[in-house]
């Protein structure tokens, strides 16, 4: 069978800086009819540029300098632009990562889809509208007849991506290129969209080039996998083969650096360093500098393709039969899985309570009407209670918009809470004077999600780290009667020590943030927080902007710091595998409230709340034959300005009962630590007596 898409030796160059960046450097791949081909790689390895090269939609600085791209035997690179336009949207369609930005904000959905029909099928008027409606129904837009006349901003993120898919499908393409189609979406929405794509592919028989960094998505979707590293493909295999025995050291490291439950007691494998800049000229293997198995040959000669088994090829000297020193594959494997040597966190003393939050509420007023009176509140946090033990880790899990970040800022008093109490070490923080609060600020600190906006670009690293020390008068030594000179040199030593502690050389303190990579910046942010000797760190999605291999480095660092300094963490995240790896306790949040809370084994191992169950089942797993039942949630997270009556989750809940529409459930306990707020479980006495009407309606 002839391949549908055949790319040979594609070279794409970006002319951005002083030296050209070889974003794609000699890439060869082929995709068969109807197959899903996953292109896997970390950010900056050239995946998206490959896709845009196929579409010939490179940014203005981009240029294809060599190679051929054939679809059904026709070389796209030789087509004139006008003929290429007949291919785009017709034979090859593409969907992009950011559905929010990829739709024209001032055109209705029907107009934007109808455009494709008019362009490629010359379909106009009523026939066009009819077809648009069909397609929208096909991609599962509820109430499509009404919604097709709406504008993109009236759709939620997941729905927008469905519209994008509808637009791509309108041309009935032979190949769909999906560039990180679910990265901007929450897991439950991601599950819906992936489902839809699989379903549509089965019906239409189109091929999919799926570009992703997520091994889980690959495992769920792909038939074939290609791993991309620094502009070239280093390994191709069928999914089964790839997940059973990944061959390239890079692929193996990717698997090993994934956090998870089974790695709790050990450090994660890390890939040292970072992806080399593609503006550089390569001589040997591009991975050699970061590879544990590299030897002289790797640094001088670029490896060619070697077959591991039929259909599984790898670009590595380890598998090259002629290269001489052939390492045994199993030895490699053993080396990969060996723990990196970070001691497991000692069983901390969890009895002493450090932070107790009771019924915390953060409401933002909505102004409306003539005089801008307050018309209602966005109840971002609506009665959250939690406790964190000294040296323990509580993970706060939830989808975007559930209010978990606001909880963190509310605890730190960065946003004044509307109601409730935050007691830190017995001291009530809510309503404290700015001055009194300042005296306590050193005790609890925060690490933010975006390493690019969390460091002031105009300050040197030393100034960034010293800022907190100066503001809070933190001295390394507790004796406060030092002369200024001495204390400043002491402070300098402390900055050096901090940088070393987070794994950066002390000389870096004279540099500016833009000289560091995302992972390094996150290390600096951690050093800044540690500078004031806190006991509680609130980590607000500290790794979600990072690649898997860098994420592993940061998680290792956090774990090691906890072990040596006895820090307590409030770990805010949406990533379940990070929770499994790091947390002692888990609280699951939905629409401003905690719906389930317990130890990590209880909640993740035996989830009770239907939302937790759905959330966990929606996470793509990288097992080959997952024997699990996926609970698909319908619809989106409702607006916290107008939460549904009764249990907030009932409109999406597969087990919703009449009582769920009426009252918010009280908490039911399972054991001493595991509590759930759901009507499926016996309600505590006081709450059922409070709402007798609700009980009657069930009867």
């Amino acid at each position: 069978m002839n391949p549908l898409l055949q790319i040979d030796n594609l070279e794409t160059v970006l002319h951005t800086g002083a030296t050209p960046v070889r974003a794609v450097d000699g890439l060869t791949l082929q995709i068969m009819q109807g197959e899903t081909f996953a292109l896997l790689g970390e950010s900056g390895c050239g995946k998206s540029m490959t896709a845009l090269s196929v579409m010939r939609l490179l940014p203005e600085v981009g240029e294809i300098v060599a190679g051929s791209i054939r679809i059904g035997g026709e070389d796209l690179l030789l087509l004139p632009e006008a003929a290429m336009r007949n291919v785009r949207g017709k034979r090859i369609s593409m969907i992009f990562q950011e559905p929010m930005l990829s739709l024209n904000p001032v055109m209705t959905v029907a107009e934007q889809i109808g455009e494709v029909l008019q362009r490629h099928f010359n379909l106009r008027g009523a026939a066009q509208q009819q077809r648009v409606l069909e397609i929208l129904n096909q991609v599962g837009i509820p109430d499509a007849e009404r919604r097709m006349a709406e504008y993109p901003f009236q759709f939620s993120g997941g729905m927008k991506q469905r519209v994008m898919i509808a637009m791509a499908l309108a041309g009935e393409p032979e190949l769909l290129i999906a560039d990180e189609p679910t990265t901007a979406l929450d897991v439950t929405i991601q599950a819906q969209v992936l489902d839809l794509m699989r379903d549509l592919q089965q019906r239409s028989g189109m091929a999919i080039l799926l570009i992703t960094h997520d091994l889980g998505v690959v495992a769920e979707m792909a038939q074939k996998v290609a791993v991309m590293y620094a502009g070239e493909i280093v390994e191709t295999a069928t999914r089964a083969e790839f997940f059973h025995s990944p061959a390239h050291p890079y692929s193996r490291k990717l698997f090993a650096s994934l956090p998870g439950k089974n790695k709790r007691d050990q450090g994660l494998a890390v890939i040292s360093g970072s992806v080399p800049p593609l503006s550089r000229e390569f001589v040997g293997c591009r991975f050699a500098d970061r590879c544990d198995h590299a030897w002289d040959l790797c640094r001088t000669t670029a490896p060619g393709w070697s077959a591991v088994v039929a259909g599984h090829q790898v670009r590595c000297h380890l598998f090259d039969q002629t290269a001489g020193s052939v390492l045994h594959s199993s030895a490699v494997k053993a080396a990969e899985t060996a723990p990196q040597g970070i001691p497991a966190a000692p069983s901390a003393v969890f009895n002493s309570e450090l932070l107790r939050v009771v019924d915390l509420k953060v409401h933002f007023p909505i102004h409306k009407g003539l005089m801008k009176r307050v018309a209602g509140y966005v109840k971002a946090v609506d009665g959250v209670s939690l406790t964190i033990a000294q040296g323990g880790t509580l993970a706060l899990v939830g989808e975007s918009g559930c209010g978990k970040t606001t909880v963190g800022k509310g605890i730190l008093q960065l946003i004044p809470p509307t109601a409730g109490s935050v007691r830190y070490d017995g001291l009530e923080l809510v309503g404290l004077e700015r001055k009194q609060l300042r005296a306590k600020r050193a005790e609890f600190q925060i690490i933010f999600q975006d390493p690019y906006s969390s460091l002031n670009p105009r300050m040197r690293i030393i100034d960034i780290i010293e800022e907190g020390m100066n503001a809070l008068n933190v001295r390394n030594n507790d004796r406060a009667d030092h002369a200024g000179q001495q204390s400043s040199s002491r402070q300098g030593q402390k900055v050096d020590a901090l940088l070393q502690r987070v794994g950066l050389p002390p000389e870096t303190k004279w540099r500016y943030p833009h000289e560091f990579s995302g992972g390094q910046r996150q290390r600096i942010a951690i050093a800044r927080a540690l500078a004031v000797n806190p006991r509680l760190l609130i980590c607000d999605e500290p790794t979600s902007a990072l690649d898997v291999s860098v994420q592993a480095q940061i998680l290792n660092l956090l774990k090691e710091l906890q072990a040596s300094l006895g820090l307590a963490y409030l770990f805010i995240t949406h990533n379940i595998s990070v929770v499994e790896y790091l947390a002692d306790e888990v609280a699951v949040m939905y629409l401003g409230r905690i719906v389930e809370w317990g130890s990590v084994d209880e909640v993740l191992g035996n989830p009770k709340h239907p939302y937790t169950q759905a959330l966990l089942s929606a996470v793509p797993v990288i097992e080959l034959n997952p024997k699990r039942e996926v609970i698909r949630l319908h619809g989106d997270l409702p607006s916290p300005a107008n939460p549904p009556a009764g249990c907030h989750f009932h409109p999406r809940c597969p087990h919703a009962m009449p009582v769920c529409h009426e009252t918010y459930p009280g908490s039911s306990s399972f054991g001493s630590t595991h509590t759930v707020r759901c009507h499926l479980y016996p309600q505590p006495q006081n709450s059922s007596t409070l709402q007798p009407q609700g009980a009657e309606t069930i009867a």
Partner: protein
Amino acid sequence: MLNYIIRRMLYAIPILIGVNLITFTLFFVVNTPDDMARMQLGIKRVTPEAIEKWKHERGYDKPLMLNDGEEGAAKFTHTIFFEKSAAMFAFDFGRADDGRDIAHEIKSRMLPSLAIALPVFLLGLLVYITFALVMAFFRATYVDFWGVVLCVALMSISSLFYIIGGQFLISKLWHLVPISGYGGGLDAGKFLVLPVIIGVISGAGASTRWYRTIFLEEMSKDYVRTARAKGLPESVVLFRHVLRNAMIPILTGAVVVIPLLFLGSLIAESFFGIPGLGSYTIDAINSQDFAVVRAMVFLGSLLYIIGLILTDISYTLVDPRIRLE
């Protein structure tokens, strides 16, 4: 949406009061009416009687803010501030130094002003957008490069030069149209051609460059890539997708000046001898007719505020995100 517009209108009231305060301070506090009278009547030979007479003619012979000689509400109302402000809000601007009624004068001069300003505005918008689109279409080619060079050069030339140069070339050298003047009816055409052309050219550099920047910014957005990925030709991408989005900042930026068109252009009108509000203002400035200048300041801010309200309304019309929320 109606609520929104009413709120914007209510918001205009404190601003107008603020404008009134500023003009009052400028015209009556910085210099007392006595100073102004002395200045106008000639510093040297001026009698106290002449000053009193001058002040009385204009109604400036009352205390500024607070009248101690009166009782009750009259304490505040029998003052220059109250009387002048109240009259202003009732569009009663008093009389100019030449004895004519200012309000009447403004009414009769609005039309000639509009006769130049409106064509300049409309033609300008059309020409600038067209050129900007052409430059955006040929971005990063020599068309674009030299277009920008031309824009910068045009921007660097004084508007006075355009007028003087235009008059010299077209009227004096080529005798195509009269050098200045104004006539009613069909006759107006031949007088208006030159000022309109010059008006369009003198604004071309800055506006075209600004619109080009807006277009290029829109073109770098993701939805444009989506449109290209559909297989649409570049012209459709530009006209259907980019233009529609770019029109939001362009239109709303243009709408705010529409009411101000009534005020005309100061320089062009005086050069071309057009009896509009612009030349009226200039004459008033040159003859130091404070009452007229004050009236024009008030009128100008009123029109600007109307422009702001129109801008808000136009936003709701062109942007569905605002219309529907």
